């Protein structure tokens, strides 16, 4: 039963407060199921605009790419396990490490962080769908096409082979013959479009569709992290749009952006790429920090200490993340004074992240930790990420970096911060939110095996690499001489990779078995406090039966169970949601979500096809523009419903 606060409509004079009867609830439930139902079958799946369906595809696809990237890593570790190994030759090895990096960064990390946001954020803020459901679908199809493009190329021995960072002139027209790098550059186009779409969705949804009463200072920290990540995406991705566009133009139509003989500069590429590339890793990290806040709150049964400090430190991390890029370029002939500024900024960014960790520790201190698998992954995060962060502060120092830049020390550093800082919280989030997504609990016993194997494997694989770097082993080498003395540590590292593979197998097994016959979870198996746990597991397609009203940061802990205040009066015959104001989430007007349509798929195929044609001829751009215009014409064809509500000028006071 729920308290009800009716949306004021023009004809009704007053609020209607009271309890909603079971009959009324059932009636609303039936009508919502009817109007939101999408059907099964291939066409329904292809035309879906349900944010959960699309986000689930994103997550599954991203995990498939993660597995592929992991296989590439395993092949590299086999090749490097012994000196002068002949498991793969240099051409294939170069393709493998390029595709590994590109997969992990472009096809796994950012998409999966966005996807978890696209799944959870609407439920957590109490709305029914993301702001632009068709755009959301378009984002997924573009992402899928881009990923398939890369892998079709890779399997045809035409995979990019100049590194995921594709430095010119090696990746330029003179030194990379064939279409390998062109394919890479257009894969970037696909994934950057998908990334920008996801960012726009999240920002708009969170800014305008929050549950009434969820003012800015009551937004869950995970939602904050997704919004901040999305702003970073919007500011960072254009740099690589420009860079990959310039590279594609240099390679296809004889421009000279990176041709030093005609006024271009190889360093321009590095600046553009790393202006994107450094914020990229914070784009990956920040949502993970948000996931940790959710997990820590739930499993210590305490609200996170220092909410304003947490939000401000996320925002500072995002800002500071844009001022670090030159630390990837310390070995270039940039002026030393300028480089020193980046030393200071790179050290400074440890402070806001430190504040986050200290606040979590304070929360744990005042709460009562429960050692579920999700919480274990948070502990693993602290242990791994802090180590990676410390090695990062070390390499912010220019003289030290000049020794370990482009060696395995850096490989160790970024794997610790990325795996520890992003993948571990992600795995914790899987164990935490799996019941909400599927209605079943993952096995805690298998989860503990998963955690320990992963933790041990990561340390065994990457800790020796710190030493390898200091001992002189550069990166991106397909082999090394036996007399260098690097063989033993490399072997240890490769054995660690086997352990990581084992943990992945345990995870996949856990998921498969739990999907079939795991313990049913119920609405709120963890006793958590945020709105996504107020709805059944798995969440119905319309998320919440009635839009909830929020009067605190932990709504499920401040209201008696089953007595959440809600808003009634939204239409159930159309896909209707509630738009609220930015600062205080006061209701403003109703909003109709677009119904399922085949247009996103058509636009993705047409636009995506033209982008692929653009690999071979610039006419692809022209054709693509024309087709896109045509399809967008259909997309934006205005539809006005007869009783369309107008925005309210005087929002009602909320209790």
């Amino acid at each position: 039963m729920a308290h009800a606060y009716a949306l004021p409509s023009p004809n009704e004079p007053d609020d209607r407060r009271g309890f909603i009867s079971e009959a009324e609830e059932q009636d609303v439930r039936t009508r919502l199921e009817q109007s939101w139902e999408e059907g099964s079958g291939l066409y329904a799946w292809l035309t879906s605009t349900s944010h959960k369906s699309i986000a689930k595809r994103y997550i599954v696809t991203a995990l498939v790419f993660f597995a592929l990237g992991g296989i590439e890593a395993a092949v590299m570790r086999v090749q490097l396990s012994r000196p002068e190994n002949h498991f793969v030759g240099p051409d294939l090895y170069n393709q493998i490490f390029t595709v590994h990096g590109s997969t992990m960064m472009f096809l796994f990390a950012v998409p999966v962080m966005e996807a978890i946001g696209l799944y959870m954020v609407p439920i957590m803020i109490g709305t029914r769908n993301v702001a632009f459901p068709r755009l959301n679908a378009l984002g997924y199809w573009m992402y899928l096409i881009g990923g398939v493009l890369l892998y079709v190329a890779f399997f045809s021995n035409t995979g990019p082979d100049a590194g995921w960072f594709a430095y010119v002139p090696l990746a330029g027209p003179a030194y990379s013959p064939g279409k390998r790098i062109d394919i890479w550059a257009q894969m970037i186009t696909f994934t950057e479009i998908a990334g920008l779409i996801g960012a726009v969705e999240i920002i708009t949804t969170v800014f305008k569709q929050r549950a009434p009463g969820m003012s800015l200072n009551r937004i869950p920290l995970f939602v904050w992290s997704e919004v901040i990540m999305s702003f970073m995406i919007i500011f960072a991705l254009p740099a690589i749009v420009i860079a990959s566009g310039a590279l594609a133009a240099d390679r296809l139509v004889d421009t000279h952006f990176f041709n030093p003989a005609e006024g271009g500069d190889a360093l321009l590429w590095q600046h553009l790429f790393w202006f994107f590339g450094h914020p990229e890793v914070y784009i990956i990290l920040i949502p993970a920090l948000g996931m940790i806040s959710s997990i820590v709150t739930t499993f210590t049964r305490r609200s996170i200490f220092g909410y304003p400090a947490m939000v401000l430190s996320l925002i500072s991390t995002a800002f500071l993340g844009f001022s670090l890029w030159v630390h990837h370029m310390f070995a270039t002939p940039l002026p030393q004074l300028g480089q020193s500024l980046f030393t200071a900024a790179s050290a400074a960014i440890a402070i806001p992240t430190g504040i986050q960790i200290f606040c979590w520790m304070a929360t744990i201190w005042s709460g009562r930790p429960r050692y579920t698998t999700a919480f274990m992954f948070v502990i693993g995060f602290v242990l791994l990420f802090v180590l990676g962060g410390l090695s990062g502060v070390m390499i912010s120092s220019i003289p030290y970096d000049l020794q370990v830049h482009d060696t395995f020390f850096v490989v160790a550093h970024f794997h610790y911060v990325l795996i520890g800082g992003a993948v571990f919280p992600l795995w914790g989030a899987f164990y935490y939110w799996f019941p909400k997504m599927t209605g079943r609990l993952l096995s805690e016993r298998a989860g503990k095996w998963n955690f320990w194997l992963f933790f041990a494997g990561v340390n065994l694989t990457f800790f020796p690499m710190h030493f390898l770097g200091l001992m002189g082993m550069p990166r991106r080498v397909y082999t090394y001489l036996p007399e260098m003395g690097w063989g033993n540590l490399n072997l240890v590292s490769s054995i660690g990779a086997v352990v990581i593979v084992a943990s992945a197998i345990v995870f996949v097994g856990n998921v498969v078995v739990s999907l079939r016959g795991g313990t049913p979870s119920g609405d709120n198996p963890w006793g958590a406090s945020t709105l996504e746990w107020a709805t059944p597991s798995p969440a119905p397609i319309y998320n919440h039966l009635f839009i909830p009203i929020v009067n605190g940061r932990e709504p499920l802990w401040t209201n008696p169970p089953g007595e959440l205040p809600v808003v009634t009066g939204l239409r159930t015959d159309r896909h209707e949601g509630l738009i609220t104001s930015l600062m205080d989430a006061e209701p403003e007007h109703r909003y109709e979500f677009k119904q399922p349509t085949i247009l996103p798929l058509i636009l993705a195929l047409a636009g995506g096809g033209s982008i692929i044609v653009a690999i071979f001829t610039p006419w692809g751009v022209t054709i693509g523009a024309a087709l896109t215009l045509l399809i967008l014409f259909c997309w934006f064809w205005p539809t006005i419903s007869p009783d369309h509500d107008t925005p309210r000028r005087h929002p009602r006071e909320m209790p």
Partner: protein
Amino acid sequence: MTRGNPERVAAATLLVALVLLGCKREQRRFSDMSRPTASDNGIIMSELQPGPAVIHSAVQNSYDDNAYAVAEGKRLFDQMNCSGCHSHGGGGIGPPLTDDDWIYGSDPQNIFATITEGRPNGMPSFRGRIPPQQIWELTAYVRALGGLQGKAIRTTRDDHMMYKESEQARNKGHPSPTFVPSK
């Protein structure tokens, strides 16, 4: 995460597509000792034949349509100083290579023979000076200069001063071949 039937269909289609595309793969041959050294199949240098014209089979120079080989040929063209006489295809002391006039034929084995044997009036013989594999790479590049390689195969610009488009893009037509196959 439940997998519905449509998702299974989609995943299966994707997998099949990927596997199928593993079939035609790009080759980059670093060491190709098996390349023919002499022009085994008969080279024809005249369009005229007595009686009906016979289709002759060109040597399968699989370096045609190989972007890596064309790029290597371009590197060798400068390094072996072909540019000294032919400039970057425009000609000078030697005849231009970007036009449609192939004095000694445009088929791969003709070009191979030209480079290997030399020609009267100034073309040196490079037999024994350039290994056969590299001569085949040069052949592929020379054919690109003449407009006989596809657009996706050609390299575009150098990292040098370029006042015009790439030399491989100059010839937009098709040179007259040494013979016309009978119908």
